């Protein structure tokens, strides 16, 4: 059983996706239980695969029995094992959370939603699991296409945002494909492990350089790295609640995963340092991304849009961790992929719950929200503190490693940028916490018990199917923090190239 896990991870959601419309044809309400059941399989398999990797090291799986480099190889190492568990867990939680949101935003389209959701998960898992460059392109497009389909269902501006996303996303994917073409021309291979063995002799070939440039640009577009982020805020803001909850935390993180794969597995780290100065360029782009993301986020009053700009800054964090090219930096980047996925997921879950209860997304709508939705807001505070890097939440630890990376690289500007960015996050989130928990400024003076009859605020908490994922995510955010030492020792340190 266990040696079929890699195939199961892909096949289960893929087949599940094809069967969903058939099931939904007659029994629409069966779609959700079906999707949940299907999603539990890859989670179980991914967990098993990760344990296997931790116990006995990376392993491969030859699809259809064709040995690499001719056949397509699925390869699970520490990094991809971690990502698989992350994607599967977030996918499952998002599907649990989706019920009320879907019944509100996508009424009558349950089969569409769950089909695309399963396809999306298939695509993301496929990108992570495959050991073949062209296969990554195919899965990237599977996830992107299902993403386009999901986002287009959203509110007023959604179709337009989707169209822009399609155009820019396709450019990104095509650039990636071009990169694959150049590498294939130079080496005649598509298997990552095979290429990694061939490439070092060709590092100074122009073809490889061009291919690498196309790779980086294409992935940066998919990742939303400034200045290639323009599609992101619109697409994620206008997407329906359950959709942005699913896509936003995962898509950018998986793109970051591809970047780490290309820079550290496909190419040797010193290629990005000495042959082309791409590390330095990426580092400064990350600085700009963090600054611009922070400033743009400060300018927003719609919290969903604000979070999308925070995501742009967070992508900057990950890229910065990659760009400093040392062990703590890359450890921080990988840890931040996990932590940030959880935090962004938590934020979108909370925003979804708030919109579901009919509250607006503008900051002033948060007035008194802690009395109406105390548990949701408590979770919000936890996520917010984690975003600001307050220990013991997980955000602190990835920030710690990222800062350590910049210190080791002696890039002081980077360190200061990271620190300032957490202060910006503090401003962003505390203005909301202030609104939610405190009386309005100027209005409600010293509120004593006895003269407090003006208005009775009724508790009106989100339904259990939304609240449970929210609370689980909040708990994960707290637990991941102190556990980060263990996670790094067991998984992440093996994902960092030994050369560091």
């Amino acid at each position, binding site marked *: 059983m266990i040696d079929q896990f890699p195939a199961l991870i892909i096949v289960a959601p893929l087949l599940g996706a094809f069967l969903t419309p058939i099931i939904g044809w007659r029994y629409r309400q069966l779609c959700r239980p079906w999707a949940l059941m299907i999603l539990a399989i890859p989670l179980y398999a991914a967990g098993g695969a990760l344990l296997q990797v931790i116990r006995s090291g990376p392993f491969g799986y030859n699809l259809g029995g064709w040995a690499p480099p001719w056949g397509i190889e699925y390869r699970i190492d520490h990094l991809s094992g971690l990502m698989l568990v992350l994607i599967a867990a977030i996918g499952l939680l998002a599907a649990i959370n989706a019920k009320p949101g879907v019944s509100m935003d996508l009424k009558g389209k349950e089969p569409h939603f769950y089909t695309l959701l399963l396809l999306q998960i298939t695509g993301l898992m496929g990108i992570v699991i495959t050991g073949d460059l062209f296969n990554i392109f195919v899965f990237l497009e599977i996830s992107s296409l299902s993403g386009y389909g999901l986002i287009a269902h959203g509110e007023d501006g959604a179709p337009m945002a989707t169209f822009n996303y399609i155009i820019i996303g396709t450019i990104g994917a095509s650039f990636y494909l071009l990169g694959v073409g150049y590498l294939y021309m130079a080496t005649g291979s598509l298997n990552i492990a095979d290429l990694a063995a061939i490439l070092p002799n060709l590092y100074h070939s122009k073809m490889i350089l061009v291919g690498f440039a196309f790779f980086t640009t294409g992935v940066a577009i998919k990742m939303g790295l400034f200045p290639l982020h323009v599609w992101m805020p619109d697409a994620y803001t206008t997407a329906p609640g359950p959709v942005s909850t699913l896509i936003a935390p995962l898509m950018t993180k998986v793109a970051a995963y591809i970047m780490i794969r290309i820079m550290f597995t496909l190419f040797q780290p010193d290629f990005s340092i000495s042959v082309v100065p791409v590390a330095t360029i990426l580092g400064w782009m990350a600085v700009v991304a963090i600054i611009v993301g922070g400033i743009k986020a400060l300018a927003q009053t719609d919290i969903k849009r604000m979070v999308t700009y925070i995501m742009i800054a967070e992508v900057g964090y990950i890229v910065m961790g990659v760009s400093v090219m040392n062990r703590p930096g890359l450890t921080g980047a990988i840890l931040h992929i996990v932590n940030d996925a959880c935090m962004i997921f938590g934020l979108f879950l909370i925003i979804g719950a708030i919109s579901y209860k009919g509250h607006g997304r503008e900051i002033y709508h948060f007035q008194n929200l802690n009395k109406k939705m105390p548990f949701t807001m408590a979770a919000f505070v936890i996520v917010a*503190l984690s975003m*600001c*890097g*307050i*220990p*013991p939440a997980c955000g*602190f*630890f990835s*920030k*710690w490693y990222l*800062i*350590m990376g910049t*210190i*080791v690289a002696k890039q002081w500007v980077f*360190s200061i940028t990271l*620190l*300032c960015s*957490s*202060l910006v996050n*503090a401003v962003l989130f*505390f203005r909301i916490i*202030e609104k939610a*928990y*405190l*009386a309005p*400024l*100027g209005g*409600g*003076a*010293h*509120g*004593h*018990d*006895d003269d*407090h009859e003006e208005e009775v605020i009724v508790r009106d908490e989100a339904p259990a199917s939304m609240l449970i994922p929210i609370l689980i995510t909040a708990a994960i955010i707290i637990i991941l923090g*102190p*556990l*980060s*030492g*263990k996670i790094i*020792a067991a998984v992440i340190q093996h994902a960092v190239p030994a050369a560091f």
Partner: protein
Amino acid sequence: MGEVIYSAKPLWAVLVSMIAAFLILLTGEKHRNLREGWTILAALIKFGLVFSLIEPVLAGKTIEYTLITLLPGVALQFRVDAFGLLFGVVAATLWIPTSFYSIGYVRTLKEHGQSRYFFCFAMCLSSAIGVAFAGNLLTLLIFYEILTIATWPLVVHHEDESAIMGGRKYLVYTLTAGCTLLLAIGITYSLTGTLNFTSGGFIAGHGSPGLLILLLAMFIAGFGVKAGIMPFHEWLPSAMVAPTPVSALLHAVGVVKAGVFGCVRVILFVFGPELLHQLGVWTILAGVVAFTVVVAGLLALGQDHLKRRLAFSTINNLALIILGVSLLSKNSMTGGILHLANHAFMKITLFFCAGAIYAKTHKDHVSQLDGLGRQMPFTFAAFTIAAMGLCGLPPVNGFISKWFLCLGAVETHQIIFLFVILTSAMLDVAFFFPIIYNGYFKKPLPDVAPKIDEAPMLMVIPLCMTAIFCIILGIMPNAFLNFFNIVRLAVANVLGG
């Protein structure tokens, strides 16, 4: 150093109030007495746990508990040594009277959001003990940041404009400080590969003198914000908008002392006296805090708002503690560390008095206190005792610590610092005695009751207790809690004696 005992007691001392905090939240507004019961129960258990650590520490042992590894070579670790224990004992001891006092205060004033108030209070205590018992810089930082966040809801408790503004100012100052600390600790880790506190410092020999001086500046700036070192003191008077028990425990004991504690930890246990002598920066450091001592005293003179005056007095005394430690001689360190405990007892008494006056009469300005001593004799008696202590008059405990500070200043042949300490005592007299004079000798204002009409017992008894404690500690510094011995042991550890 002596043997190490592995025990989970420090962990439980931290956890007990955290657990209580959640019980408080669960119990909620409906069952007030049960909720307050949790607070008091947790306070007593915490005191018991911390008290039980005194004996082994005095016997020269260290109590250690490692929870989980965070980084290679750095764990979430508690290590109780004499210095940490001192802060722990002070915080745990003073939580008991403050709990009773808080209950009296919030019930008299019918405050809103009491559950939130007690929740945050308990969280603050947890993190203060965590700061005290932290075995390395990272653990210290973690609890320090929790303390920052847990205090914010208390600062903005009144939810009016000045409270919210005070809260914002507080966050800006302390979060920026937290970031500075994070960077400083990161650099330290990258230089040395360890963060564990070592008596006499561990950073010597790593990095160039210039870098080390920069690092020291970052540490002092980071911890100095909470300790109110000028020019980072501005948030403290603004945060006085908080309810008085908060000002009492957190702005005399918990938060600000955590800042001072951090400064001293860095000076003595990261850098170490020898390295500071080598770098020659201790005079600059002492100069900066001496400036704070004098200027804060002068500014206090100008405050009419009672709590703001007390806040400046706090800034003045905190700087005095750091001054004592940064003079790096045996007596000055003894005086400084002892003052950390003594000042806590005196200042909490003063805040308790200010709160009792406010709860009873809604007066909070010095100029409104005329003749109030006749209406509230116990409160004013306690106030007088504590004020005398801060001025350094025997037989109150402030005398002892100031005596050692002066001895230390003489010992280092830095007569200027002796003058600073004496000037600050003069200034203390100058800004405390008018209050006492107003209260006892001025013609009573028309709204002062002619007969004794004190604040509720739940408030008066705690403040009398702490005042009496100040005198007892002045006569017998080793009474009950062995403060003096603990301080001596802490200094001996640092100096390797």
